[in-house]
Every structure is written in C-alpha cells, then in structure tokens.
C-alpha cells in the first residue's frame, strides 16, 4: 500500500511492514469456529480414568455378549504394554489417559422408536449443525446416522434401506442384531494390537456405525454419519465397520464437529472396510472438529484415527476421500490392503493446517494381489503457523505381479510461518511393478495475488480461487452436495489467510 510521506522525512519509515494482505489475513484469522456451541443436555458421564472396571462398565452398559467384553479386555491389556508412537511430526504434550472420561451419553436411554422421542435439545443441536435429521427435511438421498458423544442417536431411512437388505445401524445395535457379522469382521482389518490408538479404541469404543451391503446390491442412497463431541473432558472413540459383499456398491460419508473448549479432547476412531469380489466402497470424510483457539492454539481436538480397508475380493475397489480442515492435531492414514487380484485402492486428500493446527496424514497402499492398482492424490495446505505433513507408504509384495501405483503429493504454503513436509516410503519387492511419484510445493505468493488484484479480483477471492483450484482433483471425488460443502468450508477456514 502506498503511503504519502513528506519528502523531508527520512525515506520509508518501516511502517509498510504491515502489508494490506497481512491486514486481511489478520482480520480473517479472527473468523470464529461456527460449530463451537455446547448443548445443555443431561448426560450420563463416567468419571475420568481407565481400568478393567471401566471397560466392564462400558460393556455392561451396552449389554454386550461376553466375547466382546473379552475382546475389549484383550485389547486393553495389549494397549497397556504399548507405547505412544512418537514418529510423527506432531508436537504436543503427552496425553494423560487417566484424565479422560471414556463414556458419556445423553441421559434418556430408553429405546427410541422415532424421532419424536429424541430429546428436542439434541435435535436442535443437529439442526444448528445443518444436519436435517427429520426425514421430511432431508436431502432426498442421504441416510444419516448421528453419533452424539459416544452414543448413536438416531438412524434415518432405516426402513427404506431394509427393503434392499442393506443394514445401516449403530454399532451397538449391530452387536445385538447381527452378532455373527460383527464377530466375523470386527478387528479383521485393524487387529487389536495394530497400533497404540487403535488398541485403545478397541478397548473402549462406545458406538459408531455399521453397514452391510448384501450380494449384488447397489446401495440406493448415500449413507452418512455425523459425529459430534459435546461433553467436556470426554474422549470419543467410535468404531465403524462397513462390509460390501460380492458385486455390491456403497458410498459413505462422515462429518464431524465439536464445541470450543479450552482443553484438548481426544478422538480416536477406528474404521474398517471390507470389500468382497467386485464390490466397491467409497468412503468420504469432511472433518471439521474444533481446531483450537486461532490466536493461542489452546484447546482443539486431538484426532488420532485408524482407517483401513481390505480389498479382500478380486476386482474390488476401495476409495478414500478426505477433507481435513479441523482438529488441533490430525494423525490419520486411511489405507488399503489390495489382496484380491485386480483390486484398486484410491486415496484423495485435502488437509488444511491453519493457525496452530498440525496435520500428519497420508495413506498406505499394500499390494498383495496381481494387477493391483493404487492412486494417491494428496493436497496439503499450510497457513498461519500450521504444519502439514504427508506421510505415505506404498508396498509391493512379492506376489503382486504387475502392480501399479501413481502418487502425487502437492503442498501449498500461505504466508511464511507455516511448514509443509513430505515423507513418501516406497517398498517394492516385485520387479514388474510400475511406480510413479510426483510431488510439488508452491506458495501463494505476493506476485500471484498482485496479478489477480491487477485484474480486479480481490485478495480474498484470489486466495479462495487459488486454493480451490489446488484442491479441485480431490473435491471432484466427493459426492455432489458434499463437494459444495467442502468448498465452502475451505473458504471459511482460509478466508484471507495470506501473507
């Protein structure tokens, strides 16, 4: 910005340091987190602490069969022997697991038959979040399962889905009504001892969603879960299990929000996907947990998530799409085991770290079957003091003849206080493999912004245009409604954060 200084004054006082763009950033960074309210509702919350008894309590509260309690306890004992991983780029003080409450539920615990019985406060909450639980108001083609703190509140469109033989219910219901399916697949992709946070989840998971698509069925609508953390000092540990039987197809979306609180809250979920012969699972995430205070970095969700899919059948396909804009910390590597011949794994990711956010995210593609193919498209955006890390592994096993992988990892930096890091690991044990890796790092520079300004486009519009252009390949993978939502979310999360 030009300033008219009198010629007699010493030339150029250092007050031009504060460029106009910097001012726009500063005002935009003040943008408040839209979903930061809390819901005043009576909750049944376990006091903080973790022990065998806590696990027994959770299991009993849910009337679980003995095998599941044993499974949980086994996981817990494995967890006690494990150590919190420290290989990520995330910097945070150690979590005190005894200070977390492992169970919290809205108090009305009697069985709900229809939405009329759901606490109206709860419905208001979901309304504020823009999740229309009432079926008449719903997006015509999305069935929603809503998980409030630890408990699945309601699942919509259940009857419609049942007509097609699709099972879509809370995890707890699945344990009751479809125990053989749960027993067969639970832990089959992410075993209890897989990793520290996965083991913790296996011990204390409270609820989540369960999906089964029978042979030959194309699920008639998008399935969707909204996760909401409400209670203070609670962890959220949901468990999601999706099974697509032979020749079936399903598209699933999860969205997440949380209130603003000064202390960090832990979210450690596990998602397991199983795709049988010729089946296809498309799993999309729009993650907008509270990222912490933009000025101080205080509070925010610690998001430690294990997501893995097994393409167990020939010609099967699993596709992960994630838009990660929230959380103080994100530790997440949705992966694919490509076991079936000709199976396909995909990972499309946009991860944004603004202000004090840190994200360490990526994927693993493990090629076991012949002619397996994987695609990785990762877009990292760093702004403010945010740190963004891509960490990915591609492994071609000995028997994986003619495996192919294409990886593309792009980072964009906004401002000069943020960072982008890329750690691709490639392990090839079969000489017929074809691997391609592309990576780029760019910066939204003053020159780009000035170029846009010079054409009459404001700085804010320019940033959103550039970032959306950068993310386009990933947004194109999202279901239509959610692509629009993701785009809006990016605009809110980034507006003007340019330096």
């Amino acid at each position, binding site marked *: 910005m*030009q300033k008219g200084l009198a010629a007699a004054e010493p030339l150029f006082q250092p007050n031009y340091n504060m460029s106009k763009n910097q001012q726009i950033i500063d005002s935009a960074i003040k943008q408040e987190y839209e979903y930061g309210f809390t819901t005043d509702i009576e909750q049944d919350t376990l006091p903080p602490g973790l022990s065998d008894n806590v696990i027994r309590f959770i299991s009993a509260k849910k009337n679980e069969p003995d095998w599941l309690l044993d499974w949980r306890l086994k996981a817990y004992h494995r967890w006690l022997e494990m150590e919190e991983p420290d290989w990520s780029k995330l910097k945070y003080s150690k979590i005190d697991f005894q200070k977390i409450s492992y169970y919290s539920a809205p108090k009305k615990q009697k069985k709900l038959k229809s939405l009329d019985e759901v606490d109206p406060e709860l419905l208001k909450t979901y309304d504020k979040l823009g999740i229309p639980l009432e079926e008449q108001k719903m997006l015509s083609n999305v069935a929603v399962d809503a998980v409030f703190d630890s408990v699945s509140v309601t699942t919509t469109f259940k009857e419609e889905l049942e007509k097609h033989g699709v099972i879509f219910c809370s995890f707890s219901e699945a344990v009751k009504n479809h125990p053989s399916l749960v027993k067969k697949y639970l832990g089959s992709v992410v075993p209890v001892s897989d990793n520290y946070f996965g083991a913790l989840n296996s011990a204390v998971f409270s609820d989540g969603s369960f999906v089964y698509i029978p042979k030959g069925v194309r699920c008639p609508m998008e399935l969707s879960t909204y996760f909401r953390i409400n209670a203070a000092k609670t962890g959220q540990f949901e468990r999601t299990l999706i099974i697509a039987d032979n020749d079936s197809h399903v598209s699933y979306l999860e969205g997440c929000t949380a209130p603003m609180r000064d202390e960090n809250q832990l979210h450690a979920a596990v998602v397991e996907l199983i795709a049988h012969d010729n089946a296809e699972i498309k799993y999309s995430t729009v993650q907008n947990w509270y990222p912490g205070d933009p000025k101080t970095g205080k509070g925010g969700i610690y998001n430690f998530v294990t997501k893995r899919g097994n393409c167990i059948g020939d010609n099967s396909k699993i596709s992960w799409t994630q838009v990660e804009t929230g959380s103080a910390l994100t530790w997440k590597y949705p992966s694919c085991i490509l076991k079936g011949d000709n199976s396909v794994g995909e990972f499309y990711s946009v991860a944004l770290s603004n202000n004090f956010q840190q994200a360490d995210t990526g994927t693993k593609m493990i090629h076991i079957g012949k002619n397996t193919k994987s695609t990785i498209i990762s877009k990292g955006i760093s702004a403010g003091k945010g740190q963004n890390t891509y960490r990915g592994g591609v492994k071609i096993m000995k028997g994986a003849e003619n495996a192919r992988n294409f990886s593309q990892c792009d980072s964009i930096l906004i401002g000069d206080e943020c960072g982008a890091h890329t750690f691709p690991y490639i392990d090839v044990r079969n000489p017929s493999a074809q691997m391609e890796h592309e990576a780029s790092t760019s910066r939204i520079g*003053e020159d780009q912004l000035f170029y846009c300004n010079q054409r009459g486009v404001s700085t804010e519009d320019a940033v959103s245009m550039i970032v959306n*252009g950068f993310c386009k390949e990933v947004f194109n993978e999202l279901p239509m409604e959610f692509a629009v939502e993701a785009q809006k979310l990016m605009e809110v999360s980034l507006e003007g954060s340019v330096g």
Partner: protein
Amino acid sequence: MLEIKNLHAGVKGKAILNGLNLKVNPGELHAIMGRNGSGKSTLANIITGRDDYDIISGKIEFNGIDLNEMAPEDRALEGIFMSFQYPVVIPGVNNTYFLRAALNAQLKHFGKKEINAADFMRLIREKLKLVNMDEKYLSRAVNDGFSGGEKKRNEILQMLTLEPKLSILDETDSGLDIDALKIVAKGVNDFRDSTRSFIAITHYQRLLEYMEPDFIHILIDGKIVKSGDISLAQEVEKKGYSWLES
C-alpha cells in the same frame, strides 16, 4: 486520462523515481524507453499499486481520481490494466474461469449483471481470434506451461476482454519472436481508439516499429530527460542512451 506530477517514489526504502512528470491524454500511445534500472518497471508498479512500492511525494491522478491509497484491485476496476513483463502462473485455476472472474468483478463494480458462462464463451472465442490463440488455452491453468510468446498473447487476450481505459504494456516485446510480436502489436493497434490510452515500456524500439506511438520519453535515473516523436526512438537505437545523460 493520466497525470503524473513531480513524482518521487521507490521500492522498499530505495528511491527510484526522482521527479517524474507525464501526461497521457485519451487516444494517445506513449512509449517509455530506458535502460535496465532506469525506473521503467517501478513506474508501472507505482501506477498499478503494487505492495512495497511507495510514493514519497508528488501525485498521480487517473481521470481526476488520486490513485495514492487506492487498492490495486480498485485501480484495475477503474480501468487501469497492465500487461505483465513476466505473467504469473496460477496452477489449478482455469484460464477461462480466471478471466470470467475478472470480468465479473468489473461488471459488479459498475453495478451491471454478471456474464453467464455461455455468453462468456461466445465473447472469449471472438477475442481469441484477434490474438491468434487456440481454444485449448482456455482449459489450461492460467499461464501454466505457456511459452513466453503464449503468455504475452494471453495478456493481450485479457486486455481485449477487460477493455481497460489505460493499458500499460510492460516489456511486452521481450521474449517474442517476430511473428508473435506482430500478432501482439496488431492486437493492440486494433484496440486503439480515441478513448483509450497506452503506455508501452520497452528497452528497444523494435515494438514501436509495429505500433504508432504518439510520444517517446527517455527515462534516465528516474526522470524523463527527453521527449519527442518516433525519431527520438530511432536516434536512441543508433546512438544508445549515454548522449542523453547529463
């Protein structure tokens, strides 16, 4: 159109322009010639309002509006356009989308209805022909993978679409082969009329052979030391700049 009075200005604490005066009337094409470091690009950046370029004293008026303190996008919306010496690459942003966003920003600024995608395509196809550009450039990202000549033609395409009142052509001839230069010059010449003004900034008179400048100004050490008609450019081409130095 543009009036610069006794302008002292510079970049990041360094004074570069030292008492520059220039008056550009509607319909005129002024060429500013000078060596590297004489202040040519600084002048362009000062007029367009780039960050870090500051006016120390003096005045720039555009159609009676004082440009000092005016944001660069507002100057653009008022009708000041610069064809960049080094057009900027914007990966991922489609050329058509970019140009339509720019045009719509302008339409909005003047309280007019935004142009829809179909009408815009019709418009842009006409303009493409004028600069001999293939439609394939429309679907590419802004300047991404463009050759030097393609970038410059793309700048002229933007000028023809946005129809500015004052166009600053910053070293538009650099990096162009003779065919591309002719196309660019023709684009500019066809666009000239009694209401539009141009400032062409250049090292050499090469570009000026294809355009018809009304005035030539020689810039040395941030000051216009001599003005004249095209014959001055030819003289400089022969004798260099040193004879003009005081």
